[in-house]
């Protein structure tokens, strides 16, 4: 059951390895984590792929548990070397425990973002990718960089420098972000301009429903093609359907 649900969601998302820059945006109270986990499953289907995962939103344990339900072993892949995990929040916490920083100065924040970028780049260079394999860079979630105080300009530069990697043939980027305040809107516009696929996860505008958890909008070709789906989050799976189809579940 879960397999069919996952496959159907992936079919709706229709992300392939040609799409070098995928942007996932979550609005208001929606949770777009399921999109990321499903896309990871798709990436890991190809044994030659490598993932560099920057985790800022959830813990390793969480992703591992979700992965188990979807059918992949995250920690096993980390041991294999297929997945590399960078946890900036844990690193910042460890540093805080070591020495008392008092107030974050701009200099400290600059160093943080430089350290993150350096860690990502060195990881990308250590990956040995075989022919037919892609390196996927996943960031979850970009808006946390604003939350820790990094300025708009620095985040833009960070994203530009990551985007520059996409000139390589086998490099893909997946960024997940939350849209809350104005800074988020500005960076989201900057990212929408460079993204190949833009996946929007939002709650229903009209309120709550027991049949539908939210709306999934997938935009490609710079706005050329737009697909809208409704999804229902159940305990073990996510069901996706066209708006209005919710009563006729296509799974039975």
């Amino acid at each position, binding site marked *: 059951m879960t397999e069919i649900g996952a496959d159907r969601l992936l079919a709706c998302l229709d992300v392939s390895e040609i799409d*070098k*820059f995928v942007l996932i945006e979550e609005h208001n109270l929606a949770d777009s984590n399921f999109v990321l986990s499903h896309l990871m499953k798709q990436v890991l289907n190809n044994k030659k792929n490598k993932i560099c995962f920057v985790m800022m939103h959830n813990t390793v344990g969480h992703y591992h548990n979700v992965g188990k339900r979807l059918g992949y072993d995250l920690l096993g892949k980390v041991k294999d070397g297929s997945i590399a995990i960078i946890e900036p929040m844990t690193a910042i916490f460890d540093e805080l425990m070591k020495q008392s920083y008092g107030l974050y100065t701009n200099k400290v924040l600059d160093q943080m*973002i*430089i350290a993150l*970028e*350096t860690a990502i*780049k060195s990881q990308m260079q250590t990956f040995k990718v075989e022919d037919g394999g892609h390196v996927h860079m996943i960031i979850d979630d970009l808006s946390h960089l604003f939350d820790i105080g990094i300025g*708009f*300009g620095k985040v*833009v*530069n960070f994203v*530009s*420098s990551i*985007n*520059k990697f*996409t*000139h390589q043939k086998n490099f893909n980027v997946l960024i997940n972000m939350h849209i809350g305040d*104005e800074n988020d*809107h*500005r960076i989201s*516009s*900057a990212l*929408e*301009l*460079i993204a190949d696929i833009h996946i929007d996860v939002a709650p229903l505008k009209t309120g709550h429903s027991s049949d539908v958890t939210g709306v999934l909008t997938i935009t490609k070709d*710079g*706005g050329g093609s737009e697909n809208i789906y409704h999804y229902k989050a159940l305990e073990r799976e996510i069901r996706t359907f066209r708006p209005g189809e919710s009563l006729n579940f296509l799974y039975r």
Partner: protein
Amino acid sequence: MLPTYLKNKPPPKCVLIQDSVKVKGNNFLKHIINNHKKFNGVVKQLYLEFEYNRSLNDDGLLKNVEKHDFIQECENQRTADDQIKEILSLINQESCIVIIDSMAHMIINFGKDKTYSLVHKLKQSNKVVQVVSILHMDMFNENDGIFKYFNHLSTLSMKLSPMFMSEWPRVNYTYKKVAGKIIEENEQFSFVNGELVTKAIEKLDPKTLVQTAPAVIPEALTTFKISLNESDKKLRDNFTLPYLPKDETVKQEGGGLIHYEFDDIDDWDEEDPDDDLDI
């Protein structure tokens, strides 16, 4: 017309393309670069890269163009002043066309003031044939004043907006000619086989709109039967309303006497037990 102005000789000195997520300006940039390759092939094109533009790179447009990378990375952080010096040294060598992609990122890196003074210097320089830049409007607020300043600086500034009452997306441009004349137009644009085509936006005449508007058929608006067929109309015409005066003359009976005509089933006894009916 915009395509003609873009191909003018001498070309407009400072071109600014203001685009947004809804209408992207990449095609304009490609069009301008291609035009220069075709008509000004001799002049060197300097592409200042502040953001990796995958679409431009994938199309192979940057082949005969000199690309300079100004994307700020963690390893080689350069100060704004150093980068500006480098740009100014690049332009002093020979005639060139400077392409800034994108100005939004340049403003974020250098700051509004330094960007303005740099673009102003490029505009004043006689080695620079044209400065073309693309500015993403969504990345800034109106309050920052950025659009105001850079519009003032540019000789041909275009603002792209989505289609509205038109077939194609719209472009609102202001062209300041060398002689002093300023042309401001609103046109709709499209790229046909890679070539820019614009046409005027036709104003809709209210009279023709009303005339050509589809007639509203009330019956079609609802599932209820609100029209009458022939028999219904006859019945309606023949019906007499109860409280209207009748045609036949009625005898005026004085004193308020009520003249009652009995029906067949009415039972009336002609008797008066209480002596008050005056029968």
